[in-house]
């Protein structure tokens, strides 16, 4: 048990060290690429939690939109980073984001069509009541 905890304590103390603390304040004052990536990761996790825990199929679709947007945020952040380090074709991330938005729109249209057909046949939008394929 102690062996397991040692690296965690070491990590926490390292975080609390003064130079590290100054770095964190600097990071809050001047957010860089990593902050955007963290926000994208947190949005992705919120979306995953929504997909796994909600019963309403429409809210599950909305969580999927949130997941796709988190991916978009990462693409745009890296596109800006590549522009800053002077890469050729640095806007490729933005071009890919356009395609993600197209696919998300198509997915929403098809998915909501399925929801309407499902509601017409089964009169429910709770996913745990849609169990035709469960043996």
């Amino acid at each position, binding site marked *: 048990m102690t062996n397991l905890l040692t690296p965690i304590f070491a990590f926490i103390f390292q975080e609390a060290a003064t130079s590290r603390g100054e770095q964190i304040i600097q990071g*809050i004052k001047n957010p860089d690429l990593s902050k955007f990536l963290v*926000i994208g990761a947190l949005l992705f996790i919120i979306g995953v*939690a929504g997909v796994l825990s909600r019963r309403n199929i429409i809210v599950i679709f909305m*969580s999927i939109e949130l997941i796709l947007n988190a991916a*978009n945020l990462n693409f745009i952040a890296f596109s800006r980073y590549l522009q800053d380090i002077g890469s050729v*074709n640095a806007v490729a991330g933005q071009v890919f984001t356009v395609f993600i938005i197209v696919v*998300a729109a198509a997915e929403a*249209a098809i998915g909501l069509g399925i929801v309407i057909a499902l509601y017409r046949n089964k009169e429910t939008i709770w996913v745990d009541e849609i169990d035709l394929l469960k043996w």
Partner: protein
Amino acid sequence: MTLTGWEAVFFWVFSIAALIAGLLTIMARNAVHSALFLISALVSIAALFILLGAEFIAGVQILVYVGGVMVLFLFVIMLVNVGAEERGRERLFNRPAQVTTTTVLALLLAFGLVYAVNQGYSGLKGKNSAALTQVEARRAIEQQELSSAATGTFKITKDTERVGGSLYRYASLPFEIASVLLLVAIIGSVMLARTIKQEAAVDDVDPEELKKQKSE
């Protein structure tokens, strides 16, 4: 790539707004409230795109997501949620064990991803530090070269021009495939959402089947 001054303030405001709106999206009892919170999350993310210098994508995000997809969502919610009031007391989430597992998984993912991002970024920063030191100077030169807007107080960015050029130069085949995908999505959703009576109107239902439906 660092944001300074007001840009940093706006970054924190909009990113915290996006996270809170995202959390409320998956926790709201009423699906309409969920949709409205998702709209505010998407608008906040569009603001983050502007901070990152992707004005075109931010505009597309507002037009397509908020103007198109979310209106479609609201339509479907209102089509499907007939009598939501009387079912308002029903369970919102899955079984408690499932929700607990989800929460634990989400926390683990959060710690893992944040740690991995920070580790990876420090490595990346070390690798490209030489190029990153000249960013400010190069950005200033680029700002000078931009043409000014009609009022004379703003500069017109080259972002849309660059995205368009890259889209047609390097991604013209995916662009065409995306148009076919949209066509398939239109036809598919119309096919899925129509009733048996509407299908009968174009003669692709067996008359016997239709008679059986009517008699029910």
